[in-house]
């Protein structure tokens, strides 16, 4: 059995909404005990609707936010950010790419600086090497060296997402959390970015946690799938298990709701309409 990069045991996260002058406070259980294990080089897709807790889980895995209870293990090492400050090695291991490439890049920072910043903060490498590594990463994600001195507004959405991916890869992470990385992109650009992610995964042996609400993308990219509903993992298994034999009612509803673009379904719909 290959090495396990990510493991969570009974992770919960509660948010307390403070009571005001007239009302009592409330507690929202955003996550209600999530268990998962993920092997090196695999892709876990997390599916669910808005408010189901998938982004909260992403924040906990990325060690931005602490779970209320439960354990998070990265490469077999237990992490608790409330007790011990993260060292640079831990910070290097997990990186994140956000949904909106227009919001996740600083408009006043040149692309070269965007890519070199993680190296300045986290590693002690000389200026010349930083520049060299940033250049190399730029070409790796399909951009040109002359883009080094440009600003984010000069790029299209797909190119920006490539930049965000490049930034996440600068520190050679083990685990990449992708929070809806293609949902803001056009279909043809989405295909390019998905291909890029597959290439990078093969080359660096990356492990992906891929958060999405688009089942067709999930079916294409995932090895394992977790379906979340109101903070619970209602379905968790390999892609084929989940897609071919969904157990939970919510998963079935989700599959039934997804628009189908194959000729057979169109025929069926037109026949039903004519009748």
């Amino acid at each position: 059995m290959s090495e396990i990069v990510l493991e969570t045991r009974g992770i919960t996260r509660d948010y307390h909404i403070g009571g005001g002058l007239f009302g009592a406070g409330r507690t929202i259980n955003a996550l209600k005990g999530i268990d998962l294990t993920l092997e090196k080089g695999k892709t876990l897709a997390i599916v669910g609707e808005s408010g189901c807790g998938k982004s909260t889980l992403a924040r906990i895995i990325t060690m931005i936010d602490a779970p209320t209870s439960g354990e998070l293990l990265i490469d077999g090492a237990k992490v608790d950010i409330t007790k011990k400050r993260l060292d640079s090695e831990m910070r290097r291991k997990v990186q994140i790419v956000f949904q909106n490439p227009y919001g996740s890049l600083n408009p006043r920072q040149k692309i070269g600086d965007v890519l070199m910043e993680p190296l300045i903060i986290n590693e002690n490498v000389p200026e010349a090497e930083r520049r060299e590594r940033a250049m190399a990463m730029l070409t790796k994600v399909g951009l040109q060296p002359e883009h080094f001195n440009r600003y984010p507004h000069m790029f299209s959405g797909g190119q920006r997402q490539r930049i965000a991916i490049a930034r996440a890869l600068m520190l050679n992470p083990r685990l990449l959390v992708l929070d809806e990385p293609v949902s803001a992109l056009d279909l043809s650009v989405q295909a390019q970015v998905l291909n890029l992610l597959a290439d990078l995964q093969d080359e660096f042996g990356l492990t992906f946690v891929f958060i999405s609400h688009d089942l067709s993308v999930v079916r294409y990219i995932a090895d394992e799938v977790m379906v979340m509903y109101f903070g619970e993992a209602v379905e968790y298994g390999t892609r084929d298990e989940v897609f071919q034999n969904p157990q939970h009612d919510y998963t079935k509803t989700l599959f039934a709701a997804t628009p189908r673009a194959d000729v057979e379904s169109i025929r069926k719909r037109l026949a039903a309409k004519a009748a």
Partner: protein
Amino acid sequence: MALLDIKNLTVEFDTAGGTLRAVDGVSLSVTEREVLAIVGESGSGKSVSMLAVMGLLPWTAKVTADSITFLGRDILNLPPAERRRIVGKDMAMIFQEPVASLNPCFTVGFQIDETLKMHTDLNNRQRRDRTVELFEAVGLPNASDRLGAFPHQMSGGQCQRVMIAMAIACNPKLLIADEPTTALDVTIQRQILDLLVSIQAEKGMGMIMITHDMGVVAETADRVVVQYKGRKMEEADVLSLFENPKSAYTRALLAALPENATGDRLPTMVDFSLDDAPYTGARP
């Protein structure tokens, strides 16, 4: 008879970098009881062409066409006041962001009432009854209690239902839906699409569905127009478009769908020898 007939529509914007041609010689028509989907990626001019028909573009836009007729009447050269009598009544539009398209300062009941007041002769009581009736038609529970709700008290799906109620308030002949479900979750998307299709069939309206999602096209359309960089690439009925796409662009678009993937990489535009350069509007 064609409900809406557009011939050779061109929309240009003057920008600092020169003239940008957002729509370039597009012709299309919709008949009664028909669902026409206009599909394309961002910058393909699909929204701009319909905004031009509605007369909702800013004055900086230059709209030219051989003709735009609605119910046999030329609406291209209509004075604005005349045009406003048609827009919102016989021709209505639903927008992408339901929460942003409603005015946060007024109750949803008031906003629907405004439409009715503008376009019908109903009195106060009749308008109120009509609004309740509309809310029931779009599947909002406790319709009469909902009239006093503000948009922020409703979910995205509910706001979209209010938008639909507002659009169908005056029994339009043509409903233009601009990405009506893009901002919504999959299960809510299904409900809204089902609602739109059933209302369309029941009232015998014509409907134009603007979308970038091939799944939505497959689920709703009778006929499809594919647009790319402001130009019409292909027009076909829905079955032949999916079965036997004629233009290279449509083939590329269908191949890029993850559910049609065969290998472990998706084909992209480059594989179909379509240029990948960002849209500039300038053409040789």
